[in-house]
């Protein structure tokens, strides 16, 4: 409601980042979600990541569709512009916004209904564009805002609160993204900040489309026994073949890893992620095998989490369109309009 907004107390005590901002400076309006909703933890993780990366608030653009999850863009980085699009169509808004100004950080937040039901077409095509943004899919297996109907990510056998079991093949955003050739694919759990925060940072540093499927339980409609998207179930049934540590630009990779099992990936913005293999025969740069690995686990309703696949070499949307490094919305009119002088020559071709 219009009268809810967080009391902004100055907190001299709080630690500050390079910009002299503290974590509170990366928060937004008061959440109106249910107490305990997984989405609020994801919001906290985004705040944490933005704070630690010391992003200037105005350098961030927040995009979302419609749903409880999509509401959360109002709950972080109050100093950034936000755009709540229509249901399931945020990717096209993001594409346009990014086309106009490639020099901002685009954070998209969506839900499983928003992204996989009504929105799966736009998601598929923004992946193909390799648009430079991080796309956080807060996945709870239901439509929260419309009171708990099964979404397209409900696993086979997963039971609704009313007890009916889902029989339809679920859409696993990770498998979908891999099949469509996404350049950065990760999965995490709203309850696992240690894993989630570095993944968000890595996604923000990745130049291209970074999708993070975050299992984010809906305490009100899908956190019961029999749900494969409940806190309990996800905790027990997810494991990560690789761990990813984020190392900010200009930082040395301080921790020393045993050789062989680690793989540092340098990101576009100079930062790097160090991947530690927990499962020796998993290779996060082999799309086909990653897909197979996730597929096998998925059939047992098990979640593979962590950084599942990354390809830094893929050219992003702007590179493919050969646009200038500066934002298109900053190109002076003089450069855009051929002017009266050139007109006669153009018209000549129509005689």
């Amino acid at each position, binding site marked *: 409601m219009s009268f809810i907004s967080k009391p902004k107390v100055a907190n001299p005590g709080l630690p500050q980042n390079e910009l002299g901002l503290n974590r509170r400076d990366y928060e937004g309006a008061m959440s109106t979600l249910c107490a305990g909703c997984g989405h609020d933890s994801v919001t906290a993780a985004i705040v944490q990541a933005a704070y630690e990366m010391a992003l200037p608030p105005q350098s961030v653009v927040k995009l979302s569709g419609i749903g409880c999850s999509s509401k959360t863009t109002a709950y972080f980085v109050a100093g950034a*512009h936000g755009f709540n699009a229509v249901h399931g*169509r945020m990717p096209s808004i993001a594409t346009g916004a990014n086309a106009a100004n490639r020099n901002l950080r685009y954070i998209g937040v969506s839900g499983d209904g928003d992204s996989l039901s009504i929105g799966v077409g*736009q998601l598929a095509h923004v992946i193909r564009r390799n648009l430079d943004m991080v796309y956080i899919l807060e996945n709870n297996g239901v439509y929260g805002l419309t009171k708990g109907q099964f979404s397209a990510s409900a696993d086979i056998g997963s039971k609704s609160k009313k007890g009916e079991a889902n029989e339809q093949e679920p859409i696993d955003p990770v498998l979908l993204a891999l099949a469509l050739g996404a350049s950065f694919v990760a999965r995490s759990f709203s309850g696992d900040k240690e894993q989630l925060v570095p993944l968000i940072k890595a996604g923000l540093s990745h130049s291209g489309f970074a999708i993070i499927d975050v299992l984010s339980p809906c305490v009100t409609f899908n956190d019961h026994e029999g749900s494969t998207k409940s806190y309990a179930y996800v905790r027990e049934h997810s494991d990560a073949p690789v761990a990813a540590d984020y190392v900010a630009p200009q930082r040395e990779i301080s921790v020393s890893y045993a050789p062989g099992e680690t793989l540092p990936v340098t990101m576009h913005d100079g930062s790097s992620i160090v991947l530690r293999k927990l499962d020796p025969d998993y290779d996060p740069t082999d799309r086909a095998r990653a897909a197979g690995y996730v597929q096998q686990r998925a059939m047992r309703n098990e979640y593979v989490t962590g950084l599942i696949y990354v390809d830094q070499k893929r050219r992003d949307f702007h590179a493919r369109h*050969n646009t200038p490094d500066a934002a298109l919305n900053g190109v002076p009119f003089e450069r855009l309009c051929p002017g009266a002088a050139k007109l*006669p020559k153009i018209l000549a071709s129509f005689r």
Partner: protein
Amino acid sequence: KFANVNGSGSTSANAMVMKAIFRMGVPVVGKNFFPSNIQGLPTWYEIRVTREGWRARSGRVDIMVAMNAETYSRDVREVSAGGCLVYDSTWPSNTLLARDDIRTCGVPFAQLCNDNFEGARARTLMKNVMYAGTLAALIDLDLEVIRALLAETFAKKPTLVESNMKAIEIGYRYAKENFDCPLATRIERMNATAGHIMIDGNTAAALGCLYAGATVGAWYPITPSTSLMDAFRSLCARHRVDPKTGKNDYLIVQAEDELAAIGVVIGASWNGVRAFTPTSGPGISLMEEFIGLAYYAEVPAVIFDVQRVGPSTGMPTRTQQCDLLACAYASHGDTRHVLLFPDSPEECFHMAVQAFDLAERLQTPVFVLLDLDIGMNDWMAPDFKWDDNYRPDRGKMLSDEQIAGLGKFHRYLDSDGDGIPYRTLPGVSPKAAYFTRGSGHNSYGVYTEDAAEYQEVMDRLVRKFGTAARLVPPATIEARGAQAAIVSLGSCDAPVREALASLRRSGTVIDYMRVRAFPFGAEVEEFLAAHQTIFVVEQNRDAQLRSLLTLETAVDKQKLRSILHYNGLPMPARCIVDGVNSALAKGVAA
């Protein structure tokens, strides 16, 4: 009129004939009637040549070049008495339907091609060029003009110039030898086309987008709007690539569908560039939800709707003005949108520019409604003018300085009483940040479900629409104080002008107003009030312009009598003349 098979390359031959006439200084217009198909179906091309430079379909056929056996019999029937028929005499003559009231010139085109050219493809192509040659002889076209045209077309392949010219001459010579040329109806050099060009509306609109400084185009291919983006792309390739860096000062997104295309335009406009999408009826239907968002969240967007025959898929390659209501009230809930109605390529060029200015000034979607006839046919237009003093009207967008000097920013306040709030762009300052949403919001841009706060914003949007009525291009009015008048829009202008002239010849003088935009300005109200009988001329079944006039002006609807044409072919003047006369005959005050 030419009757061909599509995919056989006839279009270029027909265009060449038209260009030749144009270069001989004679006013001309061409209309292409093609099927929704790629190859093998009948297609017709009409060229109209008049001293006066009429641009509508005439309805009568003086010369028919019948090159399609399948449609031959109906083609023959179409020739007006005293007219001339050119056909391929190689066909078994039993398929022929004789007429003694017309002159028939049989030329063994197939035969001649086989004798003179190698290869099936070459032969079909040359057949087209050859009938152009025959026609040249019959209507007295200057072969040098044709040679020049060929030279330009095949600048890179001189050999083709020769082979084509050869075909021309064969057809030309055969005609000279076998018929007495030229015909009575022939081309006489004039000087009426100097300072003019031949251009289609889609290309002109694309040129407008280029000059307006549009940098982002998003689209999903759909006939008859596709050539607009094609034209924009090639114009940009020539004029928007930085010579130094080789980088593109434009970005065209071929989206997966129209829902995405409009989304891209909204996202891009929201972020400060001029963005547009060309589409047609089905695309408009798919964009409805997003259009409502842009209206309520107040985001600029420019949409070119090149109208085709509806409803549903309808007839994609036929023309109609049938999306007026769909665009004016697009999307659920209380919404109203700004529409522009170009009548010619020239206005397509200028209105494209105005559309961006209005969209940014009003922070709302603006529709430019072309139709297939304007968009895809070649029209004669006076050379476009451009004023280098033009600067884009970015509307109430706060500059970085303004933001710096700002206390607090409120997105949806009506500070100036014109109903238009101020906007900011991302990336400047946390102070300028605001939240854009299609859900309930108050004047401060904060989410609300409060009755009064919601209504305040909705009422301001009404004021904003009032401002729009003062900013849109006014109607063109030609009043001689007559009691009766014609009110029309867009491509109807061609037949209306011709009809007015013929009515005047028969002693009936009536006034004329062409509305160029919606919402309607004060001048429209005055004109309607000043006339007793108003013929509303439009190309749709349900009198959509009449509906808009009835709803959005004070006019007494009894005064409005519809003259409608909606079979998919461009409206001929005759239909208007008859409509007016029969009404007057019924004793309506003129």
